[in-house]
């Protein structure tokens, strides 16, 4: 019989992996459409968490209002991020410059710069210390299932993430905007020729991806009860690792790898101190880059 402790770690790993998956989807969507890495994605996560925190401390809303406001702030953050850090560098809209190297590197650096500015601005406004979430909003009421003790947060994170994943799948495969996102990520120039508004599609991609990131931020914030300006950095890297492992532009791949990452990380804390657990993600990243340069699921060439 499996030790209940491991089952418990498995459940924690799954909910951790789900938040990574939400983040990784944002990375993957944006990479699919623009072929660039959005280094400011971790700050969207932080912004989502802070939006929820501000709302909680101002009024006493129900938890779904908190998640809703985080989503709204995430959408706004995604929109302005695209306008500030990506649009100015897309001076020409032909395919060559849409996916060119100069564009890739300048947006990489500009999103990095924007992420620094956002993080430092948050630090000036809220201070760099951890802010704790009021007790009644913490989602860690224990729930006992047989020998395993879980907390409500595990279920809420899993539920919200699952709903968002299904929603994303619906959006991508059943709606016009999803169709145009897939078209642009497949072939930007071709999409332009058939009359798709590439600019609008790119913005929509940022909005959708950032909403997912912001949801991950507020859920993690409520789960651990600590919100601070630098909180987006580590999950950002983890989500990035998941994306690379999944093969850069495959959403199912990214989700599966995010879950693998979350589970192996929570399992690793059984054997080593929690300070070293970040090592797992970096180790995975290096091993993937060396041995599976296409990612674990990249060979299928599945795009968005």
């Amino acid at each position: 019989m499996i030790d209940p402790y491991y089952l418990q770690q498995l459940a924690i790993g799954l909910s951790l992996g789900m938040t990574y998956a939400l983040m990784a989807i944002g990375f993957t969507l944006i990479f699919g459409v623009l072929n660039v890495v959005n280094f400011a994605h971790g700050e969207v996560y932080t912004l989502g968490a802070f939006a929820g925190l501000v709302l909680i401390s101002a009024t006493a809303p129900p938890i779904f209002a908190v998640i809703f406001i985080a989503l709204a702030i995430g959408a706004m953050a995604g929109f302005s991020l695209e306008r500030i850090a990506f649009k100015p560098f897309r001076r020409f809209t032909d395919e060559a410059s849409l996916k060119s190297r100069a564009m890739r590197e300048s947006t990489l650096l500009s999103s990095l710069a924007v992420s620094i500015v956002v993080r430092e601005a948050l630090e000036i406004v809220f201070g760099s210390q951890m802010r704790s979430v009021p007790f009644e909003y913490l989602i860690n009421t224990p729930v006992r299932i047989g020998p395993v003790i879980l907390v409500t947060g595990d279920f809420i994170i899993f539920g919200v993430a699952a709903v968002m994943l299904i929603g994303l799948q619906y959006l991508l495969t059943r709606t016009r905007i999803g169709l145009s996102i897939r078209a642009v990520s497949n072939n930007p120039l071709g999409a332009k020729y058939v009359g798709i508004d590439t600019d609008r599609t790119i913005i929509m991609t940022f909005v959708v991806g950032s909403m997912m990131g912001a949801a991950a931020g507020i859920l993690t914030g409520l789960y651990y009860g600590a919100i601070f300006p630098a909180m987006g950095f580590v999950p950002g890297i983890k989500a990035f690792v998941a994306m690379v492992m999944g093969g850069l532009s495959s959403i199912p791949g990214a989700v599966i790898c995010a879950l693998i990452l979350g589970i192996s990380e929570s399992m690793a804390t059984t054997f080593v101190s929690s300070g070293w657990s970040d090592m797992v993600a970096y180790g995975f990243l290096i091993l993937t880059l060396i041995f599976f340069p296409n990612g674990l699921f990249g060979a299928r060439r599945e795009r968005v």
Partner: protein
Amino acid sequence: MNVSDLSAPPRGRGLLIPLLLALLVFVGLPAMLAGFDRGYFYQIANLALIFILLSASMHLVTGVAGLLHLGHAAFYGVGAYTAALLSTKFGLGFTVTLPLSGVVAALIAFLVALPTMRLVSIYFAVATLAIGQMLYLVMLNWVEFTKGPNGIIVTKGLELFGFSLSGRLATYYTVATVVALCVLAIGRLSHSYYGNALRSIREDDQCADAMGVSTARLKMEAFTMSAFFAGVAGSLWAHMTGYISPGDFKFSESILILAMVVVGGLGSLPGAVIGALLLILLPEGLRAFGDFRNIMVGLVMFLSILLLPKGLLGEVSALQLARRQLGAAWRNTVKGEGIGWR
């Protein structure tokens, strides 16, 4: 090939700017520092010098070889920790630890580079980020070896073969000399045939490969050398401040160094120096208005990418400057010899 064949300017003129710079660094600045005589100014000057060395070493790998390096501060940290541990555990002095910390940083970079140098563009950037973070985690969590977040107090100051150089002015001169020598070496490396080979990798690695340039080896060499200089900077930092902790070598420091190179102009050594000066001195100057150091870094970086994509002193103008200054030593398409210094 005879030098007189070239219509190059006379040699004397070529030395004017380097001489003026040397005068400024070794006579003008120390005189000013001694005039004000405040420890704070000495500290700023030394800090600026160390970051000039860091940004120059990053220029070699990111600017010239075109590899986006996101873990440079970790190698700086490896150098600093090597110096600190050698001097606290074995009582070695600065004369020994300075080269050793460079060598250790270079060795680690070489080992790391062996598997990762096949990677290109964003994959390389992410791999260096992961490596930098791994080294940072080791510094932070291997408490028995590195003392973890408490940091290490380095009691030995700067010295040269037993002569103490721990006075304010002596410290400044030591740091300035080491930095000047290293920057000179980096300058010769990046403005030579060798530098041109690195530039060819940056422009088109497949083409360079096809032309017979060994790209993997050159990338590895550039990466290792840049880590060597970063290690030297780390050793200077450890002995200069007397206290190091993992916080000095975290990701945001890597980004700060990257911002210096980007703001100054990718591929231009004078640009890297100017960028380092700007990003160290500007936040210090604005300290009176509150702690805006990091937000300034972000803003300056963003504005310079947006408004000055080539940087403050771009590569082309830097190369023209170098060519004018080095006059006769520069060879310009002489019977199949290519362009650069011999």
